[in-house]
């Protein structure tokens, strides 16, 4: 069984513009993500439901399928 075999892009994807990037280095991806995430975390401070404790306690569903 093959392990850690890095994939090469073989065929053009269905829609090239929306293809996920292959072989992006982990560190690059993370750095970019964390940097940008800071402003998003500010936003989350604003939009997270107030009074989380009460909210999650009161979120009760009936079981479904």
């Amino acid at each position, binding site marked *: 069984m093959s392990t850690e075999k890095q994939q090469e892009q073989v065929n053009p994807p269905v829609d090239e513009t929306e293809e*996920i990037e292959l072989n992006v280095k982990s560190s690059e991806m*993370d750095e970019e993500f964390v940097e940008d*995430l800071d402003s998003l975390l500010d936003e989350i401070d604003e*939009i997270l439901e107030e009074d989380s*404790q009460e909210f999650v306690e009161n979120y009760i569903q009936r079981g*479904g*399928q």
Partner: protein
Amino acid sequence: MGTETEYGISVKNAREQDPVAASTLVVNAYKTSRGDTPSATSSVTWDYEQESPLMDARGFLAEADTPISEADTNSVVNDILINGGRYYVDHAHPEYCTPECANARDLLLYEKAGELILEVSRVTAERLLLDNQEIIIYKNNTDYKGHSYGSHENYLMSRKVPFDAIVDGLTPFLVTRIIITGSGKVGAENGSRETDYQISQRADFFEKEVGLSTMVNRPLINTRDEPHADDKIYRRLHVIVGDSNMSELSIYLKVGITSIVLQLIEKGVVGKQFGLKDPVAAIKSISRDLSCKNQIELADGEQWTPIQVQRAYLKLAQQHLTTEERTPVVEDVLEKWQYVLDNLEIDPMRLSQHLDWIIKKKLIEAYRKRHGYQWTDAHVQMLDLQYHDIRPDKGLYIRLLKNGHVKRLLNHEEIVHAMHYPPVDTRAYFRGTCLRKFPNHIYSASWNSMIFLGKDRRSFDKIMMDRPHFGTQQIVGELLNNCTADELVKKLRSKR
């Protein structure tokens, strides 16, 4: 194939929570919201009648003057959509079913269209409430208190495949695919072992290997076999073990790789070779192993990681799918399947813009770090829940998407289009197009039937659609473009 999604629902600042009333309000609001659109389907009821059908060559059967059971009230909580899907209240949840789709990309598209349909109806319904009240809808699977609601996948399979072969071949795949399809969950439920964070929302709720029930004592493999099609030719595989996904890649791969594995089972190339010693225990332990590296025991005593099991299925697909079966979408699914397995092997966090459980984990970790919250903090649970909020201004997944932190496969325009138009290459085309074109001539509809009102408005014609691959644009497009409802029924009847 198609998916069914039950959404969680809550009314903020309501004196008392009544999820059935709230769900009904939301589903009915969608009819109101469409106002004067050409889709006056609000009086069309769902046809619950199950008949043993006969077909003509195209899969239609016209029956004159079929007696109709009175079902006026069922339109209250049932909506048949012009995109060919179904929208209704199931138990205490709004549920959206996609139309039948022929490939994984379409299915992703129509599931995403469902999220917009829910949001449009949520906004419309909210106008009917008091000013301080908000309707909140989550596309998730749990209230974190032991109540789960489902996200089900349905695949059409050949009746020739024995059910035992499906159980043997599919169970190890479903148990291990959660490393790709999990939505992530803070904590544990249903008496399962405590954990800070786990990969799957649903894993804790599965208690046996095979069974018919979906509400309690849930089985990994569900035996409901109601094909909504000719049951001599087809069986329906009802997969209930999946999570509701927000990530486009998670949805796409979930349905894409599962349909490929079912093809392999139909071909007879997957047997008992990957059988697990204890699948129910395995899904819970895999769900708690965020490294994806811990081994599980196979029935023959070998120890494999879930990545190894997935790779073994992938390899069989690469070996056994014919050139014809490797359509562009299938080819793309295989490529992305390998891509995520390669990256999971190196470090799952490399997929923090791709797969739900990892996107969510990354977000929660960053937020915990900023505020010093423990995993058990209510804010952390709130983050988990709000990740699944369908509101564009509040939903955390949607905020991540809009800010470019997660990968997209679709564009917004095509999702909006899919709210209003059916896929062109399944019988959903016939259903959706008839509803759009002849809303006042249709009395009721179901997955495999449409009942037209006669000219006198008192007689009925039932059109059976027992071949899901028929009723496509290619087969009936011209017919539908060029005739009235009465002419359509007449023409279909003459083909008997």
